[in-house]
């Protein structure tokens, strides 16, 4: 960059540094931020509206559609929690998502390691199957999946559903983890092998700490996917007592669609924690996402 600037002294870099400019540049910056503010309103105002609505009385909801609540009705939250059965839904969601992620990491890591490092017959085939499976979205085989789960007695079984979720995230996860293993130097492993460590010991004690970013990536993706999923849960968790948060929200909405303020409270309870977690780790999140996508 420095070299180019020196050989081409007339180049003015104003496009990249609008703050140095005159009236035209200022107008440009103003337009830019006006447009961004519009995007900001379009994105965040609906969410703010839900938050406001969740704290209003039912009457104020109708008289004051737009603004913040005049008094804070926290009772809405207590009522929503009770009527929507939030406690048991949250337990179900934690149970399903947590076990699915543990199964996923425990199963995908050794498979990805083997595909990256070991030479065994059929290795190419396994890899090809993993790629092909990414072209088959699990949604298209919902009906036979339901049949298989029913035959295995896994309908309404939260741990059983966790296995199904782990299976549906498996191909992509193996693929991502494998690409992390491939980048690790082989010397590390060879040294440990000379010291008499087994493959599994090497994997757990040496390799795993080194591919933590890869594991974090599949856990974050898996978490968002499984925690938010409605479709498979709708298919496999039919009994209200084992249903996860998204299912609970929908049935609450369908049964009590006139209780708007409670409804907004329920929506806030379920949405806010995920948004807070995202904001807390957005740097890792966005970095992981774009690194994967842009490298292709």
């Amino acid at each position, binding site marked *: 960059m420095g070299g*180019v600037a020196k050989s081409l002294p007339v*180049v003015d870099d104003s496009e990249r540094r609008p703050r140095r400019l005159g009236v035209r540049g200022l107008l440009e910056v103003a337009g830019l*931020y006006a447009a961004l503010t519009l995007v900001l309103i379009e994105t965040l105002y609906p*969410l703010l509206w839900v938050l406001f609505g969740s704290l209003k009385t039912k009457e104020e909801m109708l008289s004051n559609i737009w603004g913040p609540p005049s008094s804070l009705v926290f009772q809405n939250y207590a009522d929503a929690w009770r009527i929507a059965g939030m406690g048991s839904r949250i337990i179900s969601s934690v149970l399903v998502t947590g076990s699915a992620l543990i199964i996923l990491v425990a199963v995908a890591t050794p498979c990805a390691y083997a595909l990256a490092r070991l030479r065994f017959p059929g290795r190419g085939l396994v890899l090809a199957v993993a790629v092909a499976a990414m072209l088959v979205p699990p*949604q298209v085989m919902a009906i036979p999946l339901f049949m298989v789960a029913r035959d295995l007695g896994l309908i309404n079984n939260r741990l059983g559903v966790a296995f199904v979720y782990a*299976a549906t995230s498996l191909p992509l996860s193996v693929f991502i983890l494998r690409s992390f293993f491939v980048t690790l130097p082989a010397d590390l492993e060879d040294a440990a092998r000379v010291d008499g460590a087994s493959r599994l010991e090497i994997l757990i004690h040496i390799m795993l700490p080194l591919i933590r970013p890869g594991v974090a990536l599949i856990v974050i993706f898996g978490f968002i996917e499984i925690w938010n*999923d409605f479709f498979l849960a709708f298919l496999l968790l039919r009994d209200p007592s084992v249903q996860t948060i998204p299912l609970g929200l929908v049935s609450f909405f369908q049964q009590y669609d006139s209780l708007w303020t409670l409804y907004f409270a329920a929506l806030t309870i379920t949405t806010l924690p995920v948004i807070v977690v995202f904001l807390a780790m957005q740097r890792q999140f966005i970095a992981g996402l774009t690194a994967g996508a842009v490298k292709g």
Partner: protein
Amino acid sequence: MILPAAILFCLFYLWPFVNGFWLSLHNWDGFSDPTWAGLSNYQRLLHDRVFLGALRNNLIFVVAVVILKNALGLGLALLLDRALVGRAFFRAAAFVPVTMSFVAVGLLWSWIYNPVFGLLNGALDLFGLGGLKQSWLGDADIALYSIIVVDVWKWLGFHAVIYLAGLQTIPSELYESAKMDGAGPLQRFRHVTVPMMMPIVFINTILGLSGAFVRNFDIVYVLTKGGPNHATEVVLTYMMSKAFQDGAMSYAAAIGYVLFLIVGLASVGLLALMRRQRLDV
């Protein structure tokens, strides 16, 4: 070491996939004995007007969503790229809807679209555009497009962030030399940004495409359940209602297979196109 993965995969991926095909070649309600049906389920699909309508809606959904997500995502990324102050803040804000569940997004928008006290009709009144007020989800002519807007709203930040990362890999020297050659802002966009971004456009299209075919059940189910009168029916909602309301398990399995074939062909076609483009560039 691959054994646990292989077992899990075979049980909940490969076996349903194979079993689904077997199922689609039989007539079965899920309980009594299955009887051989050959390709009759598939033949019936060709004459099923609701299915064909759902397929049409699904294709409109896919095309509209992929184009809008790419165009608006790139636009937003260009804005974010120029914003030197507060970029991280705007980027995070735009990304928030991506982290929300389809159900939460769908329910939120069902309130926004509410014809009586919804935010959208209220906003139209506020700006004196009361004449444009609609029953956004109740009118068969516009309900599908209302749903498309919701899906684009949810995913816009995701595609913008990927485009932004792509924009930041373009060396600024390219812009500077284009400027030296007398290229205006539009020409620079056309001859520097667009060609450099082609790989990212493909990535965004692939990500959007596979999602748009099969990630629409939640949102349609929550907003309209496929109504009014099948106006927003997509393939997955029809498949689920066939299976669990009509008990036509094998017919529903055939619907799933047709959807798989379409998604598979679209993805493979796009990948082939991408490979060819890479060689050209």
